[in-house]
């Protein structure tokens, strides 16, 4: 098991890189924010970025294996429950519960 100084250093390194990526672009991109093209991007980026993040989460889907059914069923339940009730915590809990149930039993390996 890794020692404590290494574990702390890994967190500090990752925290420094992450904060820099979140903070520094404001100084660089600040002057661009007034442009009409940037406003065009602003209005459309949220929807697209969330779609990309979903694909990122599903990037390692085992498409040639029956185990793919666990995430696909969970995704269907998440979308279905959300379109039905529009209650974000409920949708997340329902989808995750289906995934845990399937991945821990039928598709456990």
């Amino acid at each position, binding site marked *: 098991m890794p020692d404590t100084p290494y574990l702390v250093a890994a967190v500090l390194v990752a925290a420094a890189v992450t904060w820099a*990526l979140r903070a520094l672009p404001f100084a660089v991109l600040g002057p661009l924010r007034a442009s009409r093209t940037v406003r065009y*991007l602003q209005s459309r980026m*949220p929807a*697209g970025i969330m779609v*990309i993040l979903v694909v990122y*989460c599903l990037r390692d889907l085992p498409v040639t294996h029956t185990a793919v059914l666990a995430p696909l069923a969970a995704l269907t339940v998440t979308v279905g429950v959300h379109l039905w009730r529009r209650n974000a915590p409920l949708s997340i*809990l329902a989808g995750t519960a289906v995934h845990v149930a399937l991945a821990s039993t039928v598709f456990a390996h």
Partner: protein
Amino acid sequence: MRIPPAVDVAGAPSPPAPAAPPRTRSEARAAFRDSASVGLGFVPLGAAFGVLVAHSGVDWWWASLSSALIYAGSFEFLLIGMVTAAVPLASVAVSALLVNVRHVFYALSFPLDRVKGPLGKAYSTFALCDEAYALTAGQQAHTWSGRRILWLQLFMQLYWAGGATAGALLGSLVPDGVKGLDFALTALFTVLALEAVRERREDLPTPVLALLSALAARLLLPGSLLLAAFGLFTAGLLVRRLTAGKDPSRA
């Protein structure tokens, strides 16, 4: 729920009767309500992260430290595997850079100009996670003050760090055979995508363009999927804007 507009107009005199504390309280309350949907998604997600930390054999406090100081969920899930394999710190830095470089794009539209003071701005950029961006970049947030945005970010970080700590402390109670808790992250992004797409329901080309960008990046550059997908998507939007600009009827 709507807050009265015109209160936060720059240069307007501050209201005489209610001083700062009551207003801060009401802004905090509003932020608490705003944070409930996404924030409550964070508790099971943070708990899932904590349980994975406990099951990997790393001490519980590491989940608290990671969630409090890094505060980037998807990367933290990756980092568990990296630290148990004791990869070099340089690899940790490069991975953090590649997974989190998407945050560069958030500077284009996150309303940091509404957050006042260097400390406030420092915290707001530090806590600028995907979900904070998703909530504050949407149309419903156009009237939110900087203070309300800061409260929102603080609540969301507390949910994440609290969930992670609880999960790590109670993780040994969860049997090893329980798998698939990490789907909470996928479900959270799915819900946020549905809401964001619904907000612009007349604009179907945007999510389709994003989906094609992500699938192309998955096929061509699987090692840096997020960076490639965000780059393709932004380039695609710019091309769309330029070609639409040539059409005088849509100018």
